């Protein structure tokens, strides 16, 4: 399976600010996804990161709030913009490759104060 490096692993941020989370994969992958896991809840898909084009967002998530970039086949970023305490969650990067299934990064634990 792929090895995913997700940074930062955790952060505490002031409301109204933005945080960019990075996801680096050790090999080229077919698809990259960003998920959110709110406290005590399961994982919810935010968007599919498309290489070289705009991300595909799920219902309830918008580009202005969660801009995503994917400049190549091994790297993506998720920005959480204009944060409020409701954005406190774990954010997870996930990838799918041609020879392996869905693999997840270790996550970014975000606390907004």
């Amino acid at each position, binding site marked *: 399976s792929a090895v995913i490096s997700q940074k930062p692993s955790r952060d505490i941020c002031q409301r109204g600010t933005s945080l960019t989370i990075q996801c680096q994969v050790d090999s080229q992958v077919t698809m990259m996804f960003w998920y959110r896991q709110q406290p005590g809840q399961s994982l919810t898909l935010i968007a599919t990161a498309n290489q070289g084009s705009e991300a595909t967002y799920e219902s309830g998530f918008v580009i202005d709030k969660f801009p995503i970039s994917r400049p190549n086949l091994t790297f993506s970023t998720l920005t959480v913009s204009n944060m409020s305490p409701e954005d406190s969650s774990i954010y997870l990067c996930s990838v799918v490759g041609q020879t392996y299934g*869905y693999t*997840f990064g270790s996550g970014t634990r975000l606390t907004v104060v």
Partner: protein
Amino acid sequence: EDQVTQSPEALRLQEGESSSLNCSYTVSGLRGLFWYRQDPGKGPEFLFTLYSAGEEKEKERLKATLTKKESFLHITAPKPEDSATYLCAVTHSGYALNFGKGTSLLVTP
């Protein structure tokens, strides 16, 4: 719309006490059912993928089975290190996963 329901929400077992976790699903055109293990502060760790009814897969003390409406994760003679949250997910599109809320398992010595 895909729906995934896991039960029980929490389960406490004595070491060696076998049990099963349930994942019932509603999806149009199942392309795969996945089981993951998640430890606190970590991302989900892949366990199994099942594709068709009747399929079974095993790994150490874990065995996953699939019917047309549900999947079971059987845990045989669990150990304390099996304590974790077990997540079930499905996909109908072949790419994005739709997760259940998970079963939190605690195995005591």
